[in-house]
């Protein structure tokens, strides 16, 4: 049979049996649509798109076939049977939806997904599809009454609208759930409590400041940068502290009477790239009064470290002591092994175990009680036993408070990846020490605190006008070039705390002290530091050159020659 004849035959078959074909296709389309919807409910909406299946198109096609089946006037018996069952199914779906939605509202958004692995909004689509199937006979009756020219147009418009509705209702459902879930908690609160709850990060501190400062206070607040998106924004701070006068580096200058103490938590983990800025203010001010809000300690209690290594103990708190069953690490790290030399970001690494062999069978499991507001990550410090080279492997941080279990799976594979990336050979024997990266150990004076400093008198030093290390450095540079060495000297302690290892800073500090003629020994130290850390152009190390020109005798007398005018 030629292809033209075959097409003609198919058309003929369709013309004679179209009602039966529509019925058959409609019957098959229903389980297909439900199956697709259930798969997406268990995965996520749009999951099947990666296999080229658009569920919304499947649904619309099924409904279109259904409408065609109803128009055919010869409804298949299976369809009739199905329609007897559908109301029951719809009721069941609605019941399940109500139960799960109520659970979601009470337990929080995402609870159903986490607990049962079901995407609620797709259940809504299932209910909608079932409802639409049930409405088909009614739609058919209404459409039949329409005059012929309007019929096609109405069907086209209806299906387009139906398509939009499917998405809109799903979106609205998610929105309503999100809004309702918190409303229950908020509705009983006063205006102030509600603001405190919705602006939890900023409100608690700012209400505390409001309570403890007079209305004519001049308050220095953090800079407008992370991790202070709220307390660094003067408009936000003003909302809470009006009519107090507010100052900050970019927001007007003046002499503060009070300073906000804000460690930036719980935004630490989020803004880990800003570690040099955590803890406001950066320096200790001569305070008349320090009021801190419920100072809390950073506390991680390690319950256990499990491994396939035999009897892996947790290192005792005191060296040489015996393992007592738990290790409590407080903010005082002095009694704990801290391996800062392995870290790039100066995190505190708390070593938990002695070295154990690392091979492709090794895994570790750490159970630790993590304090609110801290990101804690397992770390492996790996030693190549043949070369004694050391590598540090970081694993995903856990910032959930409470008892958490952290797995280090396939550490050997991670090591191989690292070695490959660093183009190092894989040797035969490695050992690993398990450690915990317990947050940020940068020695800022106000780490882990929120509160208020009350200053005794107004302070007005150049160091007040700069906050960021780079700003202070540029300010120092300006003062040196202006030959204003006495003012430049005031900046030195601050910069020394902020960037002790910066070659240029040490060089400028040296120039300042040399020109002032005071603290010659300190000037020499700065010069030596500058020569050591100079990184502008290694081929031309200016501080080293200067150092080499100094007569050792003069240096012994601590009397550095001054620059010629």
């Amino acid at each position, binding site marked *: 049979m030629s292809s033209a004849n075959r097409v003609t035959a198919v058309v003929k078959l369709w013309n004679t049996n179209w009602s039966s074909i529509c019925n058959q296709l409609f019957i098959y389309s229903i389980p297909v649509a439900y199956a697709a919807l259930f798969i997406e409910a268990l995965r996520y909406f749009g999951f099947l798109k990666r296999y080229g299946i658009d569920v919304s198109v499947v649904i619309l096609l099924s409904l279109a076939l259904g409408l065609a089946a109803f128009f055919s006037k010869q409804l298949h018996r299976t369809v009739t049977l199905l329609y007897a069952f559908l109301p029951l199914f719809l009721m069941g779906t609605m019941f399940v939806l109500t139960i799960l939605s109520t659970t979601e509202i009470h337990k929080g958004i995402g609870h159903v997904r986490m607990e049962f692995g079901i995407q609620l909004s797709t259940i809504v689509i299932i209910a909608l599809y079932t409802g639409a199937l049930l409405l088909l006979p009614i739609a058919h009756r209404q459409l039949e009454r329409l005059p012929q020219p309007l019929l096609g*147009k109405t069907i086209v418009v209806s299906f387009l609208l139906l398509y939009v509705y499917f998405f809109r209702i799903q979106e609205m459902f998610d929105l309503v759930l999100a809004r309702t879930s918190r409303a229950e908690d908020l509705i009983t609160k006063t205006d102030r409590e509600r603001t405190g709850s919705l602006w939890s990060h900023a409100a608690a501190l700012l209400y505390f400041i409001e309570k403890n400062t007079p209305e004519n206070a001049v308050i220095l607040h953090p800079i407008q940068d992370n991790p202070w998106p709220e307390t660094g924004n*003067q408009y936000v701070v*003003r909302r809470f502290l009006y009519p107090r006068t507010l100052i900050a580096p970019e927001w007007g200058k003046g002499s503060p009477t009070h300073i906000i103490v804000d460690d930036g938590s719980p935004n630490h983990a989020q803004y880990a790239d800003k570690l040099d800025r955590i803890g406001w203010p950066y320096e200790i001010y001569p305070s008349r009064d320090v009021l801190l809000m419920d100072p809390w300690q950073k506390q991680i209690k390690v319950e256990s470290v499990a491994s396939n290594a035999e009897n892996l103990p947790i290192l005792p708190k005191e060296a040489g002591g015996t393992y007592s069953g738990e290790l409590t690490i407080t903010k005082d790290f002095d009694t704990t092994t801290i391996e800062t030399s392995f870290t790039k970001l100066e995190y505190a690494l708390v070593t938990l175990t002695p070295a154990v062999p690392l091979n492709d069978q090794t895994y570790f499991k750490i159970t630790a009680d993590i304090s609110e507001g801290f990101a804690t990550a397992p770390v492996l410090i790996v030693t190549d036993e043949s070369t004694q080279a050391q590598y540090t492997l970081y694993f995903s941080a856990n910032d959930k408070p409470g008892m958490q279990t952290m797995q280090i799976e396939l550490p050997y594979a991670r090591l191989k990846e690292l070695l490959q990336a660093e183009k190092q050979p894989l040797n035969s024997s490695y050992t690993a020490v398990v450690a915990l990266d317990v947050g940020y150990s940068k020695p800022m004076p106000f780490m882990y605190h929120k509160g208020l400093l009350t200053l005794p008198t107004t302070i007005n030093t150049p160091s007040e006008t700069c906050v960021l290390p780079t700003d202070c450095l540029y300010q120092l540079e300006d003062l040196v070039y202006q030959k204003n060495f006495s003012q430049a000297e005031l900046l030195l302690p601050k910069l020394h705390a902020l960037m002790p290892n910066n070659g240029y800073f040490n060089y400028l500090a040296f120039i300042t002290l040399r020109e002032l003629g005071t603290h010659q020994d300190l000037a020499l130290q700065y010069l030596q530091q500058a020569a050591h850390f100079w990184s502008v152009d290694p081929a031309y190390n200016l501080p080293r050159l200067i150092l080499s020109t100094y007569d050792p005798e003069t240096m012994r007398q601590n009397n550095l020659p001054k620059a010629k005018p």
Partner: protein
Amino acid sequence: MITACLLLLISSVIGYALLLIIHRQLSVWQRLSLSSPIGLSLLSFIIFIISITYPEIYSARQLHWLLLAGVAVSVVTLRVLRKQLLADLAQIKHIRRKLDLERSIVLGSIVLTTLFVFVLNAAWGPYDWDVMTLYDFRGRVLARDHSLDQLLDMSAGDADRYTYYYSYPMMTSIVHALYYVLGSTQVMTFYSLIFFSFNSLTYLELRKVTRHAFIRLAIFGLILFSPLFFTQAQTAYTNFPYTFFFSFGVLYFFEAFRKQKTPLIPALLIACAIWIRYVDPFYYIVALLIATQALVQKKPWFLLCLIPILVVRQTWAWYLTTYVAIHSTLIQVFTPQSLWHTLTQVSLKQLADLPGVVWFVMKIYLQHLGGVTAALLACLALLSPAQRRRYWLPAIWFASTMAMVMVGSFLFSLIYDDWSGIPGSAERMFSSLILILYVMLVQGIDDWFKKT
């Protein structure tokens, strides 16, 4: 809550009396839906004008007197216009007779969704970033200090000086201040009311443009369950009240133009929109079209309808340049004049960025309004040339608005380096077009259905 409801009721009486005076052709349902938003706009504007010379108007005692005077004047007005009032009351009385299945569904769904929004608003309160720091905060300061003078002095050291606290007119802030002074913190009831009025007027508008109940209901459902409006009704940003006044201002203008009627109500609604968002320059187009209507239809007195627009616009412009400027020499107010100045300073290099800006804005537009625009265009393409002729006015309005959006976004990109970092702002800007496009679409579908 009782105070909040009482305030809305009083504003309703005032707004209703005003609408009865200026436009008796509105249906009673339109008048009722518009009354409270218009009443609060009028009240806030009067309070603002008085406060320039007499800040004590914000004291509880003076506000009580003002509200009492407003109610007294309204009652006298209603007494004078009692014939119309009685006619309206008769219609309200016979509402049950008119409640067919469709109307019952609509009324029920509007009431239920509004109640839901009302409860959510009562729970959440004003909490968004700019609401906390600007719109609601100004209201709190007005209630506390009776003026923004201290705030103005304090913001001299701010990163963008006064432009933040004066970046929008005072309408919503004064309404918030009214609530706070009268002893209520339920400021969000105002937004719930706007949500109710918005949906009611939308349905009434859809009834006007189509006879097909199915299309009417389906599109109404899409608007009622629009996540955008649902979200906007639950935040105290200015976008939703602005969308309300602007959308119906434009839609009523189309109707006034078509029926050659006085465009006073559209002009009043546009004036209310300016009193909420002065920087959005879309009102220029409507004002220009009203002037065109006066010329084309040879009714020069229509030009008088521009008075509300001019009064509100000029008052705020005067306030910014005169009163606010008194406090500092550093002022840099974001005005159309300053925008024009920026436009004249554009270099060729900056002009080269224009396609990028246009594409950015178009992407946001298509993301949110692409579907409805495509459907509308498809509808228009299917109409006969004679049917298409009635769409020239909306087409001119739409093209001019879009051109203005592009130029405005370009200017914005010149002033703010991080202009592309706030797509939400562009999204909210387009929200004032959504309703108009949907109504046009329904009209288009209706015309397509009529076509034989």
